[in-house]
C-alpha cells in the first residue's frame, strides 16, 4: 500500500516542520510515506487568478507525481480542495489528464480526513496541556466538508483545553493573491479574525492550512501578540512526543 505525501509548496518551502510532523506521525502507525520528488504546487494561485495555462503546468506535476500512489495525503484543505473541486474543470479538454485528475481525486485526502476517515484513528495518544483555539479554514470546510475530523482528534488530546473561536466560519482574509491585490480589504478581515482569536485567550491557534495560519499569525505578530500558530499535525506530533517523554 503506497501512501504518498503531497507536501504542498508552502509547507515545503516555508513550513517544512508541518510535512515532517505528518511523516513522523504516520510512521508511528507503521505507515511508510513516499515523497515523490517531481511534485511542485497544486496550481491554485494561478488558477484562482484566472491563469489556467500556468495552473495546468504546475498541476500536471501533481498528476504525474502520484500516478502510482494508493493514497495521497496533504497538510492542506485548500490544496486538497483544488484537486477535488477544480482539477476536472482545469483538465476538461485533455482526456489523458482528465482521467489522471479523476483518479487523483479519488485517492487524495486532507491530513485529518486521512487519519480519521481512512485509518480510523481518533486518539493519537497525545498530551498538550495548553489553551487552544481552532480556525476551520474555508476550503477544507466548504469544498471538502471537513467539520468533525479535527475536533475529534483534538478532543482526545490530554490536557488540551479547546476554546471555541467566535465567528469561526468567517474567512481570515488570506485568499492567496487576494491578500496582496486587495490588501486593505484583506487587512480588515484578518484584523477582525485576530480580534476573535484574542478573545479566546488561547496560547495556540491551530488549523489545517498554513496559508491561513501564516496570515493570522503574521498579523498577530505584527500586533505584538504572542499567539503560537500550529498545524493540527504539528500539535499532534508534538503532543505524542510529550506523552512519550513521561
Amino acid at each position, binding site marked *: *500500500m503506497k501512501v504518498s505525501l503531497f*507536501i504542498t*509548496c508552502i509547507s*515545503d*518551502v*516555508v*513550513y*517544512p*516542520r508541518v510535512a515532517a510532523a505528518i*511523516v513522523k506521525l504516520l510512521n508511528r*502507525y*507503521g*505507515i511508510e510515506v513516499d*515523497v515523490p*520528488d*517531481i511534485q*511542485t*504546487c497544486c496550481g491554485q494561485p*494561478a488558477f*484562482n*487568478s*484566472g*491563469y*489556467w495555462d*500556468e495552473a495546468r*503546468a504546475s498541476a*500536471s506535476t501533481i498528476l504525474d507525481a502520484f500516478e502510482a500512489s*494508493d493514497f495521497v495525503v496533504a497538510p492542506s484543505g485548500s490544496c486538497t480542495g483544488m484537486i477535488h473541486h477544480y482539477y*476536472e474543470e482545469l483538465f476538461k479538454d485533455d*482526456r489523458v489528464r*482528465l*482521467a489522471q485528475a*479523476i*483518479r487523483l481525486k479519488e485517492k487524495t485526502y486532507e491530513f485529518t480526513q486521512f487519519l480519521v476517515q*481512512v*485509518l*480510523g*484513528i481518533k486518539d493519537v495518544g497525545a498530551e498538550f496541556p495548553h489553551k487552544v483555539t481552532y480556525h476551520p479554514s*474555508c476550503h477544507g470546510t*466548504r469544498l471538502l466538508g471537513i467539520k468533525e475530523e479535527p475536533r475529534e482528534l483534538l478532543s482526545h488530546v490530554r490536557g488540551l483545553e479547546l476554546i471555541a473561536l467566535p465567528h469561526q*466560519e468567517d*474567512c481570515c*482574509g488570506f*485568499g492567496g493573491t*487576494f491578500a*496582496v*491585490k*486587495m*490588501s*486593505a*480589504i484583506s*487587512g*480588515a*478581515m*484578518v484584523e477582525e479574525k485576530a480580534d476573535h482569536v484574542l478573545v479566546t485567550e488561547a496560547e495556540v491557534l491551530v488549523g489545517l492550512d498554513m496559508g491561513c495560519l*501564516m496570515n493570522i*499569525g*503574521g*498579523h498577530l*505578530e505584527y500586533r505584538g501578540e504572542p499567539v503560537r500558530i500550529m498545524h493540527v499535525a504539528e500539535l499532534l506530533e508534538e503532543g505524542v512526543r510529550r506523552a512519550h517523554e513521561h
Partner: protein
Amino acid sequence: MLMSIRADHSTVQKTPDSVKGRAELALNNEFLRRAVKFTTERLKSGKLAAAEEHGNWEEWRERGRQIRLHTIAHLDYYLEQFVNNARAHGVHVHFASDAKEAVQLTMRIAKEKQAKSAVKSKSMVSEELHINHALEEEGIEAIETDLGEYIIQLAHETPSHIIIPAIHKNRHQIAELLSKEAGEDLPPDTAVLAGFVRKKLREKFLEADIGMTGCNFAIAETGSMVLFENEGNGRMVSTVPKTQITFMGMERIIPTLDDLEVMATLLPRSATGQRLTVYMSVLSGPRRAADADGPEEMHIIILDNGRSLQLGDTHFQELLNCIRCGACLNACPVYRHIGGHAYGGVYSGPIGAVLTPALNKNMAEWDDIASASSLCGACYEACPVKIPLHDMLVYLRHRKVEAGRGEQAEKMGMQGFRFIMSDAKRLKMIAKLGRWVQKPFVRDGKITTQIGPLKGWNAYRHLPSLPSETFREQWKQLEQELHASGRPTVHEEIRARMEKLVAARNQSDHMHAGDMARSSDLQAASRLKAAEGERRDER
C-alpha cells in the same frame, strides 16, 4: 453607469473608478462599517436560526435549486405560458430587451395616463432602469415607498444592499435626513421616524396616478405575479393607483403555485430569518367588477437587459436561478467590511460581483469586481438555491485573462509561477535563491520591510522568513532516521480499512459508466466514461 453620490452635499467627491479605491473609501468610514456589520450579523444569524428551525433546510434548498434549474432550462416554454395566462387576465404584457426600451415603454404609459406622480414599491429591476430619474425628467414625481428606499431617495443615493437598501446608515443619520424633510427635529427613535414616513407616504399613495412594483415571482400556470414585502406599501402601490406597472426580470418565472410554497419558504428565511414574509400578494390581472380595489389597468414589462446572455453558458446560467434574497451579502466577509456601494453596480455583494459583469457582457470596466473576493465560499453556503458564486468569480477572472485583459505585473508574475512550478528542480533552486535574497531583510525569523511585492502583505502582517532547508532537502535524512528507528508493522485493523477502500475504489472504477448515468451527476458520468476509454487506450 450608476455611481453613488455621497450623502453630504457639502463634500461631494468623485467616486473612485476602481473597486479597490471604493473599498478603501468604505474602510475609512467607521459609521458605514459599524452599521453594515451590525445588520448583516443580525440577518445572518437570523437566517441560520430560521434554517435550523425549519428542520429540513438542505432538502428544501435542493428542491429550490431543482425548481430554478428546471425553469431556466425551459424558460422559453414557461415565459410563453405565463404571458398567455396573464394576457387572459387582461394584463398588458410588454417585452423590453434593454433598460432603454423598458424606460420608453414606461414613459409611453405614463404620458398616455397624463400621470403627475407615481408611487413605487421596492424593485431592484427598476434600479437597473434608473426609472426615477427618467420620470423626474418628464416632470413626473416618483416616490419610493419602501422605508429603506425612501431614505435612500432622500439621500440621493442608490441601494447598498439588495433587500436592506439603507443598510449603511445608522438611525442618527436617518433622523437627520428625515428631519430635513419634516422641517423639524425628529428624534433618532425608530418608531417616531417610521411614523413620520408613514404619514407622509399616505398622502402620496392617495394622489398617485401610477403604482410601480417589482416582481418576486411570476407563476406560469396561473399568469400571476407575486410580491413579497414587510411594510404593506406594496399592497398600497398595487391597489390604490388606477394604473399599475410591474417591472419583471425575464427569469423571475416559476412553473406552478406549488413551487411558490418552496420559494415562500426559502426567500424570507434566507433574507431576514422570517418564517414568512409579512405580506405576500399574488396578483392575477387588474381589478374585476366584483373586486373592492385594485388597478383598472395593469402592465407587466418583462426585461432582458443582459439576462439572456447567460442562457446556454455552462459557467453562468445558474446566475438566473437567483431569487434575490441577499443571503450571500449577509454571509460575505468582504461585503461586511466594504458595504454595497464599493461594488459600483446596481447589485452588490457576491451576487453583484458576478451579476454586474455578466449583465454587462463582461465589459472591461467591470473586470476588477471579481478580484474583491477571498473565494471563501460563504456565499455558496448561504445561497438558498445553491448558486456556486465562488466558482463563478474564478471563471470571471479566467475570462478576463483569456480576453487578454490581465494586468501586466500579474501576467509576468504568473509566467514566473509557471517557470518555477512546472519543474521541481526550479522550485528547489528558487527556494535557495530566496534564502539568499531575504538575508538583509530578516530580523528574528521574520521580514517586516514594506517594499515591492511585500508592500500589501506587510502593511498588515509580518512575513515568516524561509527556513534553512526545504522539506525536500530534509527528507533524505529524515527518511533514513525513521527507517533506522525501526518502523512498527501496520495494525491489522488499519491495513484492512485501507485495503477495503482501495478495493471499493477499483470496483467503482470498473463499474460501467452506464450505471453512473442514472445518478444525478450526468456530467461526472460522462467524464468517467471518457476516463475509462482513456485507460483502455493506455492498456
